[in-house]
C-alpha cells in the first residue's frame, strides 16, 4: 500500500518533469519562497525572465523523498531543464553568473514562451501541484 502510493508520487513527479521544459522543485512558492536557497534560485530564473513551472515540496513530505530518490540529489531546490537535473541553488547561481543558465534555458531567443510542452492543465494525480509559469 505505502509502496504503491510512493510509486504514484514518484510517477507524478516524473510526469511533471517530462511535461514541463523548465521545472523547479522548491520550498514555498515563487511569490513566497520558504527557504533562502529556493529564493535565490527563483531570483536567478526571474532575472532571466525564464518561464518555468514550480512545485512546492512542503505540503507533502513524500514529494521531497521521492524526488530525491528519483534524482539522486539530496537537497531542495532542484531545477530540471528538458528533463535533466541541472542542480540546486549553488549550481544554478553559478551558471546564472557565468551565462550558462541563459544558454541552458535557450535564452535570450525566448522560444520557450510559446508552444511550451505543457497544456497548462497538468495536475497529475493530485500529488504534485504545479504552479505553471510557462
Amino acid at each position, binding site marked *: 500500500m505505502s509502496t504503491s502510493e510512493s510509486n504514484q508520487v514518484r510517477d507524478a513527479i516524473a510526469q511533471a518533469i517530462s511535461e514541463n521544459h523548465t521545472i523547479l522543485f522548491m520550498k514555498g512558492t515563487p511569490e513566497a519562497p520558504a527557504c533562502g*536557497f529556493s529564493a535565490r534560485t527563483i531570483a536567478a530564473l526571474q532575472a532571466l525572465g525564464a518561464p518555468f513551472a514550480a512545485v512546492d515540496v512542503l505540503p507533502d513530505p513524500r514529494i521531497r523523498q521521492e524526488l530525491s530518490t528519483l534524482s*539522486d*540529489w*539530496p*537537497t531542495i531546490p532542484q531545477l530540471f531543464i528538458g528533463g535533466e*537535473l*541541472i*542542480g*540546486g*541553488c*549553488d*549550481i544554478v547561481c*553559478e*551558471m546564472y553568473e557565468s551565462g550558462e543558465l541563459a544558454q541552458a534555458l535557450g535564452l535570450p531567443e525566448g522560444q520557450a514562451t510559446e508552444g511550451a510542452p505543457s497544456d497548462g492543465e497538468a495536475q497529475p494525480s493530485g500529488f504534485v501541484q504545479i504552479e505553471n509559469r510557462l
Partner: protein
Amino acid sequence: MPTVEEIKQRIESAIPGARAEVEDYTGGGDHFRATVTAAAFAGRSRVEQHRLVYEIFGAEIGGPIHALSLKTQTED
C-alpha cells in the same frame, strides 16, 4: 553536530587528492559552505561533482547538516 574541521577531513579523505575549504556561514553549526578542489572532478558534470561530495554525508544532509553549499573545481 559536525564541525568545520570534521567536514573538511571527511571530504579530503573520501575524495583522493581533494582539498576542501569549509566554513560555517551562519555560526550555528549546521549551515556549511565548502569549496572543494579535486582532480577527480575532471570530466564530470557539476551535478556529478556535487553528488560525489553529498554522498560522503548521506542522510546527514538535511539532518544534522542542514545545508552544505558547494563549489567544486578541478583546480584553483
